[in-house]
């Protein structure tokens, strides 16, 4: 199903999607999207949605199942509280990506903004994954409670930092993999930098190969640069706060 989204309000666009998906439509191509919010929200079926144009905020918010491909940049709040499915962005994306995300995958080709992966969480086999190919702003993995965050810093300009400040501040679960070293002053107080072990290699290999396939990247070339791992040094650091 092909939809010309030019000038269509997000409520109408999303209603069209939801109704057609419920009626059995599996493939959607949305042309001339510009700024419509919440695309993919409430569909809850394993459909494919290709977005031509820049989708609005909260793309795939609470999404449960669809595979979304964005052939442009995305804005703020992608994969907010997302539960299942995949979002692939062939460009950059904004701030607060994967806020409270609890499942599914978010793959971004280029840069991401501030507070990416804030409050991500996991439960047993529900493990959300975010991979960004470029650089990230401050507060990467802030208050992270679970899931996997991977940042690659590909094609960086000379002197361009991989991450911003306050890396993993308040983090108490999950894991962050960075392609390249991190300056200690940027680390949040709750994280430590470690080398990768065999288990990490397995996780990294699995997701990164999939990511490289998505964007036509050479996996071996991406792996040539060594990765480091960030883990929280305590679990539930605030668990005793307000207890007494």
């Amino acid at each position, binding site marked *: 199903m092909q939809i010309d989204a030019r000038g269509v309000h997000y409520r109408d666009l999303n209603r069209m999607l939801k109704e057609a998906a419920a009626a059995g439509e599996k493939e959607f191509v949305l042309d001339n999207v*510009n700024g419509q*919010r919440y695309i993919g929200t409430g569909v809850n079926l394993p459909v494919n949605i290709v977005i031509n144009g820049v989708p609005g905020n*909260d793309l795939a918010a609470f999404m449960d199942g669809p595979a979304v491909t964005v052939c442009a940049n995305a*804005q703020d709040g992608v994969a907010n509280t997302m539960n299942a499915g995949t979002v692939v962005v062939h460009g950059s994306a*904004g*701030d607060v990506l994967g806020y409270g995300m609890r499942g599914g995958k978010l793959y971004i080709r280029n*840069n991401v903004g*501030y507070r990416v992966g804030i409050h991500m969480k996991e439960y047993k086999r529900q493990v959300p994954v975010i991979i960004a190919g470029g650089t990230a702003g401050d507060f990467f993995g802030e208050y992270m409670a679970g899931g996997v965050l991977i940042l690659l810093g590909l094609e960086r300009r000379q002197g361009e930092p991989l991450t911003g400040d306050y890396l993993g501040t308040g983090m108490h679960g999950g894991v962050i993999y960075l392609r390249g070293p991190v300056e200690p002053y940027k680390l949040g107080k709750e994280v430590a930098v470690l080398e990768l072990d065999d288990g990490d290699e397995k996780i990294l290999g699995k997701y990164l190969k999939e990511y490289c396939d998505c964007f036509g990247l050479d996996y071996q070339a991406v792996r040539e640069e060594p990765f480091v791992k960030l883990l929280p040094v305590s679990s539930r650091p605030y668990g005793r706060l307000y207890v007494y």
Partner: protein
Amino acid sequence: MRGEFPRNPSGCAISGIISTKGRRMTGDIIIKSIALMHDRSNGLGGGFAAYGIYPEFKDHYAFHVLYHGHQSRDDTECYLKENFIVDRAEPIPTRPVAGITDPPMLWRYFLQARPGRPEQRGCTSEERGHSSFGEMSPDERDFVVSVVMSINNSIPGAFIISSGKNMGAFKGVGFPEDIGWFYRLDEYEAYLWTSHGRFPTNTPGWWGGAHPFCLLDWSVVHNGEISSYGINKRYLEMFAYKCELQTDTEVVAYLFDLLYRRQKLPFEITCRVLAAPFWKDIDRMAEEEKAMYTALRQVYGSALINGPFSFIVAHSRAMIGLNDRIKLRPMTCGVKDDLVFMASEESAIREICPEPDRIWAARAGEPIIAELEEGL
């Protein structure tokens, strides 16, 4: 609670465009951009600033004034005539628009300063006692500022919403696109437009409280809130700025006027005062830089703006975008040939420029400055 409550995805919207070659564009372009972000505002405020719109009066101070009654107008006009040569006084043209109700009286005046020393003009001795503008410097613009402050402060129901040369503010209660059509902005041409869609949170939605906030040819549109308002306001009061518009944003206009125009700091440094680097970052700087930023933070501690913000400040030669230091509000920038764009969302830029040469997210605390080319 029962029933269906449609979510209102609020947050305020800002958008701006400048041609660095001074090429003028009609207002429909900026209306189109801000209208795309309709859902960020709730109909309680919208507004625009436009530069280059009065070429036939380019050396006059153009006062846009909002009146809540005839008495306010009579008093204001009397005061203006005492202080300026009034070359033209007329209602601001509007057209009926469904979404705009109960507008106040909207007038504009094209004014020339009277010859002679500014501090000898107009002000009563009592007002001079309260004002440091006339006494500190013979700058005509200080005098204009004192007149604006005086009218906004002391004539009930009269508010000067802009007071620069060859520019003007158009604002009110409504969605921004409705406000734009109401003021017939499609009939104006400007080389720099900024706009705002409001979702008032802490202060009332009223005509004078809509953005932009202007003084001389400064204008500010702002998404966010200024937690340091009280400190900033008291600091500005020491320099005779009076904050009368019941909202936080006006301090930004006055801080730019104070730091850039009166104290002659460059734009870049002015921005670094308002969104100062954290001490932890200053500690890591090279000695010379460290000394400068330490001095700036010591001298201008009360001009630091705290809280979440992204704003676009404009004046006759530049458009400046600035985010708070930890990027708690969005801003995207774009460039296409001589055009520079800044907006809360990328889609608002793409709506009027589908294929920009470059588009990027502004970084926390780092000013984006787009200036007119030299000689224009």
